[in-house]
């Protein structure tokens, strides 16, 4: 059964082609074997290609403001999973779990999971 499913998926990929992959390398950009949680407010949601970005703002231990850039799937991929350009709005308080960027000064994450506690809205998934 698993083998049939694998063959079907492969056939599907072959027919549809491959779309919306990264313009950069994820393995080179993020620490894929680590996870990090950020609780912050939405600053801006860039719903775009080649990948969407969610800008968040929070404060560190000393009260200094930090802007986080959370990489997410391409607009088309997000749309297919129910995330629209107005799903998130500036000021929304969210909790994001992601893979941390290799370059700490970029304050960057690759999205794994996002939750908005105010209404329980959540998204979880993976993307290339």
């Amino acid at each position, binding site marked *: 059964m698993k083998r049939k499913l694998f063959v079907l998926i492969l056939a599907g990929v072959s027919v549809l082609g491959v779309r*919306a*992959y990264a313009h*950069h*390398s994820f393995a080179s*950009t993020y620490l*894929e074997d680590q996870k990090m949680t950020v609780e912050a407010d939405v600053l*801006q949601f*860039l719903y775009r290609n080649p990948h969407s970005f969610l800008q968040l703002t929070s404060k560190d231990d000393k009260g200094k403001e930090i802007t986080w850039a959370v990489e997410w799937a391409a607009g088309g991929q997000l749309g297919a999973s129910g995330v629209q350009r107005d799903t998130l709005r500036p000021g929304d308080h969210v909790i994001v779990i992601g893979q941390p960027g290799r370059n700490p000064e970029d304050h*960057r994450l690759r999205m794994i999971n996002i939750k908005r506690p105010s209404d329980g809205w959540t998204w979880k998934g993976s993307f290339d």
Partner: protein
Amino acid sequence: MTFNKLSLSLAALLCVALPAMAEIDLSGSWAAINHEDSLERGGGPYPADWAGIPFNEAGRAKALSFTQSVISMPERICWFQTQWHIAAGPFSLRMWAVPDPLTGKVLAWMVGAWETRAPMTIYMDGRPHPGKNAPHDQTGFTTGGWNGNELIATTTHLKTGYIRRNGAASSDQATITTHFLRHGDMLTVALLMDDPVYLTEPYILTRSYNLSTNPVAIGGPPCIVGDEGVESGRVPHYLPGKNPYTGEMTKYYGIPEEAEMGGAQTMYPEYRDKIKDKFKLPAKCTLNCGGAGGN
């Protein structure tokens, strides 16, 4: 006599009906199979995995200075890759011929673009490449010709680009030779990179495609610049000896660091024998363990 005339007529007919050279039709949508080098073409390679790249010292030094954050500089987010991205990227191909409207003769073959690569125009009309001082860009200048059923395209006048998406670079002196080989409903594309600045030998990659009735886009979605965490004016880089990610191939896969650093010898099968005593098979693969999520 009558038989000889008939034979002659048939031979003449065949000469007229068949193209002067054994060219074949490459037009259509070619869906990438991506069964080879799936990590490199999918999520992307590790930051210091240059095994199999025939670097010289300059090529290795340039690669070691690279950090992926460079591609998030606002001016580089939508920067085109060179035509080598056909080999190193994951995408499918759309090909079509541009005919002379009067004679029907193919003037050029086109390979459609992606969001990160310009279209490739393969001029088939015998025009020469521009002079050595002509401008270079990511698209380059490409001419082609038939070798039997194989279309061979030669691209020059490129700007610097990537031969692997982790900073392994090609220079503006590089030449890409692309072989298009059709086998029924399959297409194999073999690309050779000759680069006198960063490589000691040609670097070769092949890819395979299936003919598809599902149209492959000829341009890809538009790329839009946005904040990816690198502010304008900052140029991320590693100084010599300061790349913190060398050794990851040893950590995750037991591959010796000398193999990770590339060089022509790492391209050849016999190199495995040379490093076999230094290779330690990990007890368990924990990260990116092969295609289709296999462990």
